[in-house]
């Protein structure tokens, strides 16, 4: 019965994207109704076919993330309309409304660039930036945290004050201050975001290290004559790394938003290189007349962040011993 919602929702969504053209609010509302109906349909089918405890939302989230990553990686191979070079779109119509059955399924922006392509290439930038930032943040913050958690004492106190200092800046203000000092680009933005993540990772790593440093295998290693460096790298890091990584999904979500916020404020990666943030920012001036320029990349970003949070919650429950012990 409930499974019928899937085709029904699909039809409704089809109508919203294809048949209704105005007003935008109605179009959006109908599309949302269609999507919700589809979700419950899929949920019902999966619960019947796979298992009654099937977590549809989790698997859909994971699926979306895989899709985004694949699209971002293979964007160059896709038959996308021009999304990055406005000199090739001089004769194209700008601010085209989304129409699934046209060559610009999600419309075009003020520079007549294809929004679908922009969203996909934007995903590439978002993922690149946040993954670099998370990697750098995990490695540096993790090592600092493990080291200070292992040695404690004055080093720990100093690191504590430094992390407190970094955390004393509201994140966005901090990013703004850092980013303005450098030419915005994928690498600088990534490093600025990494810098933002370092204190968080330091704290997480330190807390986890304190838990592990109490355990006897560390004592045993010292009894075996292991030097501190070895204990940190061989005994502590392998244990701390998993709970640390379990936060990565959520931190990637935070960083994607942070990067987009910078782009939105005009201090991030500059157009015409598309990022979700600068696409949204570019459209906000014409919010009233062409809302799709804002809300199409906005929706993609929202869904991605939502899925990252969902998957992240599960990862944390599974991987963070403190979380799962509770």
């Amino acid at each position, binding site marked *: 019965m409930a499974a019928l919602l899937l085709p029904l929702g699909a039809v409704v969504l089809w109508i919203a994207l294809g048949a209704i053209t105005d007003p935008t609010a109605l179009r959006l509302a109908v599309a949302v109704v269609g999507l919700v109906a589809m979700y419950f349909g899929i949920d019902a089918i999966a619960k019947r076919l796979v298992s009654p405890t099937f977590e549809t939302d989790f698997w859909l989230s994971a699926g979306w993330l895989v899709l985004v990553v694949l699209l971002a990686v293979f964007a160059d191979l896709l038959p996308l309309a021009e999304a990055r070079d406005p000199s090739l779109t001089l004769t194209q119509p700008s601010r085209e409304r989304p129409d699934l059955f046209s060559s610009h399924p999600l419309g075009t922006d003020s520079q007549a660039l294809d929004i679908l392509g922009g969203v996909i290439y934007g995903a590439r930038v978002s993922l690149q930036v946040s993954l670099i930032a998370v990697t750098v943040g995990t490695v540096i913050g993790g090592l600092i945290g493990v080291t200070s958690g292992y040695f404690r004492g004055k080093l720990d106190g100093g690191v504590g004050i430094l992390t407190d*200092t970094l955390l*004393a800046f*509201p994140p966005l203000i901090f990013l703004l*201050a850092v980013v303005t000092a450098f030419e915005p680009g994928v690498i600088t933005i990534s490093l600025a975001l990494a810098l933002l993540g370092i204190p968080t990772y330091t704290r997480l790593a330190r807390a986890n290290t304190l838990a592990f440093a109490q355990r006897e295998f560390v004592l045993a290693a010292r009894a075996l004559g292991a030097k501190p460096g070895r204990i940190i790298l061989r005994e502590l890091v392998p244990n701390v790394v998993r709970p640390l990584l379990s936060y990565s999904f959520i931190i990637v979500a935070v960083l994607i938003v942070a990067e987009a*916020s910078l782009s939105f404020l005009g201090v991030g990666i500059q157009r015409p290189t598309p990022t979700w943030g600068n696409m949204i920012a570019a459209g906000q001036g014409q919010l009233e007349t062409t809302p799709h320029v804002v809300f199409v990349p*906005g929706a993609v970003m*929202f869904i991605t962040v939502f899925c990252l949070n969902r998957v992240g919650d599960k990862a944390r429950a599974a991987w963070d011993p403190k979380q799962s012990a509770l």
Partner: protein
Amino acid sequence: MARMIGLRLLKLVPVLFLVSLATFFIVDLVPGDPARAALGPDATEAQYEAVRQELGLDASLVERYVDWIGSALTGDLGNSLIKPGFTVTELISLALPITLQLAIMGMLIALFVSLPLAIVAAYREGTAVDRFTNGLTAAFISIPGFLAGLLLAYLFVFQPEVPRYAWLALGLAVACGMFLTAARRVGDDLGRNVALWILAGLVAIGVTLLVFANFPSFPRTGFVRLTSERGVLDNLRSAFLPALTISISQIAVFTRLLRSDLIATLQEDFILSAKAKGMTPRHILWREALRPSSFSLITLAGVSFGNAIGGTVIVESIFGIQGVGRLIVNDGVIPGDYPIVQGGVLVIAVFYVVVNLLVDVSYVYLDPRIRRG
């Protein structure tokens, strides 16, 4: 107690010192020449040198820092480069009340929405209402601030019929819920409760229709100061959308925390015993369960308040409000007016640190378990 607060204050000193140091030097890395920015293109070399000297740019970094922080401690954050005749302190003192108002209003809206939501979700744990609340908070947490702001601006300013009818639907739904409750109570409860619920439903319908009929229009940009002669209503009207934007993510956080807190409390022995004594669910929720949870809520509210202060930059930028965040970005970062950036960031960071300290202290003060430990 006092000793603990004292220790925390002591710990604050190096943090604040480093914050000021970082603020000063980060901005110093900004490319471009502040003297040139201040002068404009028509200046001669002699003028340029004079301005450099006036701004103290020819002094060493350390001297400049000492000079800056020394003045900052006396409340003097220097002069704006781009807007001659304005001191940074003046600019910030003009902008800060706006930012504070937005942050406070955002928090109040969040509390107002999340309190009933969390109570209902906790009391009906596992039901459709609870699942709906969970989904809603998950969505709210995932929506980036600037997107929420643009969406609200779009709906309330350009498509005002949408929120207007949404309000009508919501109000009528709440009223229906109240009538349904009344209907369910007819058989098994005291009469006065039934009357109360019916009355509440009628009031809800009345309020809903009143607001529906006089649905206010909201400005896309701009802000009317509370102290402006245009009055409080205009002030609230101009602050509503930005505050609502700020509250979106807070609603999610508050609701989640309060819900799980309430669920935990509801399982404790004293609640069981209260139930056993035959107290009404409402009494249990409001009197017994909510009180212990309020401590963590206060903490969270404080932390969120600190975050909101730092996060208003986005909201202010969307709604064209001259708060501290926009001051920093539009008047500081973008035109390269570095004393504004330094002063603004310092003020916000200090604010943030102090609010967090107050929260820590109040938490210690409020929660006897911590106090003893």
